[in-house]
């Protein structure tokens, strides 16, 4: 029920490619998906539901369709008139994250798992207990947290300092959000409460608790990214490299920042020029301060601007006809710039 309501709020009277919406939610970062998400104004929900299953997504759409709120064809989905009314109703009734910014927190679930595991390990260590079941996480996160713990456990007052950082962190959150996160923590003789239990205790829905928890962790991640010096221990649980760009794009991006050209990077990394351009498009969509001017000549910006003011959905072929020699990369990059600017002004 609830999930269906959230999904309806991601749709519009205009046709949207439903697979692109699904991939946005699970966080598949291909250029075309990211571009669709940007165009639909859904990029901020990137990877908010990584374990959403395709079958469930389809089932929820089916239910919306059965209720007459959406219409679908093979590729697209759009709101009916009844659906638009329903959307207006649900939009205000649902709890929405306010701190979640998809492009900046692609790996929030992993960060959440690492923080929870760290709390458990330090708590058990503080009580000198080594006989316990560590929180199930991926092996990768487990290794990261265990080596973090080994690095610090010898420091005098380690657990006190850790606790102090947590206290300071919780003070930054709304009281309700702080309680929500804390009640899910586990450690020595503290089993934690499941989201089902919290939903029941709050007279709320599991999915609402889940959304609120995601938002709380998004806020925590934001705080830790902004003030590392204040939280030396907790900040190390954030893996800087994985917050925004995928690994290969990150490498390209670092070389760009050092002043390399697309061709130089292609040669140096032995990666096709086309792929490097895809990386740049990804970076343009995901990074807040992308230097569009470095890749778009003023004349192109001006000419495409004029064409698209007249015809906002100008196709690449039409653009190329008007501007011989125009590259798809330039065309798409300019589209991204327009979208980014229009979102900023909204």
């Amino acid at each position, binding site marked *: 029920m609830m999930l269906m309501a959230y999904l309806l709020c991601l749709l519009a009277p205009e046709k949207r490619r439903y697979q692109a919406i699904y991939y946005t939610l699970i966080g598949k970062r291909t250029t075309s998906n990211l571009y669709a998400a940007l165009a639909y104004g859904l990029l901020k929900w990137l990877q908010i539901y990584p*374990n959403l*299953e*395709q079958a*469930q997504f389809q089932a929820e759409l089916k239910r919306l369709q059965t209720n007459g709120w959406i219409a679908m064809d093979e590729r697209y989905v759009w709101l009916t008139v009844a659906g638009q009314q329903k959307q207006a109703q649900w939009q205000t009734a649902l709890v929405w994250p306010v701190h979640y910014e998809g492009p900046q927190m692609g790996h929030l*679930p992993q960060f*959440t*798992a690492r923080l*929870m595991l760290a*709390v458990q390990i*330090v*708590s058990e260590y*503080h009580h000198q207990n*080594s*006989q*316990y*079941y*560590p*929180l*199930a*996480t*991926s*092996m*990768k996160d487990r*290794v990261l947290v265990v080596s973090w713990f080994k690095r610090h456990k010898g420091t005098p007052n380690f*657990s*006190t300092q*850790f*606790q102090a950082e*947590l*206290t300071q962190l*919780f003070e930054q959150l709304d*009281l309700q959000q*702080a*309680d*929500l*996160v*804390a*009640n*899910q*923590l*586990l*450690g*020595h*003789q*503290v*089993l*934690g*409460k*499941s*989201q*089902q*239990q*919290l939903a*029941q*205790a*709050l007279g709320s829905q599991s999915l609402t608790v*889940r959304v609120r928890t995601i938002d709380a962790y998004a806020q925590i991640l934001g705080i830790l990214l902004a003030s590392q010096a204040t939280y030396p221990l907790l900040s190390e649980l954030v893996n800087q490299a994985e917050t925004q760009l995928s690994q290969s794009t990150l490498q390209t991006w670092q070389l760009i920042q050092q002043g390399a050209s697309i061709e130089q990077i292609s040669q140096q990394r032995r990666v096709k020029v086309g792929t490097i351009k895809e990386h740049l498009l990804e970076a343009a969509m995901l990074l807040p301060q992308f230097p569009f001017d470095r890749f778009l000549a003023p004349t192109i910006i001006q000419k495409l601007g004029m064409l698209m003011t007249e015809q906002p959905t100008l196709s690449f072929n039409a653009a190329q006809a008007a501007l011989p020699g125009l590259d798809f990369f330039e065309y798409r990059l300019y589209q991204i710039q327009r979208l980014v600017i229009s979102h900023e002004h909204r």
Partner: protein
Amino acid sequence: MSTDELIYKALKERFGYETFKPGQLEVIRSVLAGQATLAVLPTGTGKSLCYQLPAYLLGHTTVIISPLIALMQDQVAQLNYQGEKKAVAVNSNLEPRQKHALLRRLSQYRFIFMAPETISQPAVIQALQQCQIDLLVIDEAHCISQWGIDFRPDYLVLAQVKQQLNPGATLALTATADAQVRRDILTKLALQSAKRIITSVDRPNIYLGVSQQADEASKNTFLQQLVTESQGPGIIYFSSRQKTVEIAAFLQQKTAMKVAYYHAALSTQERFIIQQQFMQGQLDVICATNAFGMGINKADIRYVIHYHLPQNIESYLQEVGRAGRDGQPAYAMLLATPQDTYLQQSLVSSGIPAAGLIRRFYQEPTLFKQSQGNEFDLLRRYQQIGMDEQAVSELLQNRQKEKHFALQTMVDYLNLQGCRRQFIVNYFDEHPQQVDHTEGCCGEQGSTAFLEKFNLKTVIDDKAPKIAGLDHWDGILKQLF
């Protein structure tokens, strides 16, 4: 000290037990004698002890092949909990850098868990060849058999792996293998000379009940009455995730019990918390799909109820076997309505690629490069291990037939007029014993009267109170540190 004295000493010192469960000692002796061994021990009778104990006496490395990452992690967690730090799971979930580092230190570990697709990688084999492998354990060995319920093509490489690693002994372990599957395991692992230790699947302390209900409404009413009057804790198994949520809410509303639901789509942390709460006795009943139960090491589960008809008797027994591990009375109850069989029949074909799809996949694999889903994963694996289209087609056709047959067996069990315990024993055991059929062993139930007879009725209302409101964060931090 004689070998047996050493074995009993390790049992007491490492595991805190004085005695073995049926089959365990025989398996351990066989393994320690360097004998290839096939052990079929029913769920809930301590299969892992059969390799954990020898590992301590042998002293070097024990490698355990396990089909699921979650299962491996549970086993590593269990060993950690027992105070064993030298246990590790090497799987696809590691970053290349981490994996590389781990492979270099591999010989430092006593227990190494791996998935079959990991162990067949050249770098992994090489790293393992640097270790002295006392024992190679193939856990859930029935996965190697295409007649088995969980056939995993990756298991087929294990005979070759065994040859490359040349372990001191090999142990194939499973809880569910009929005669055909057992033969298949031995052939496919090249273990024809193995010593075979097969204990009866029969668990006499678990009462085997079925209850056929007219429709879902009466099923729910009976379920509510049953769990309210039963001593807990218990598990209710479902074939559908949605139903776990619905029935948990229903029981929550209608009873004073602490109920949770559990299925694979919940987040890892959520699943972990619920599992721990259940283990620590903070939940009365859990509504779950078959994702719940692996690695659950809880001795005092008093009942396992099936809300839907399971797809085969092997999984049914495995799930039922989670009850009464402490040897005290427990019961299994299979609920059914006439509609259930149809539901299961429609599920039988899901996940098996149709003939047309197999053909197209083999003709133009590039078309399916982006395709996601179990069918495609399966086809890609078959192709990778070098099976051609015809072989895959035949294999999958057989699988479909097998699955229908398995479901039919389950329906027969449900409708049986005779002794259900005898039915199970005949189905699985090599030399089926005559079961002394009494009222206390199995039967069809329309009421909860049977609970009293087995002392399984709740005497007092000891159900823990539900939580109201949230605790304050600063209080929780004080508790934690």
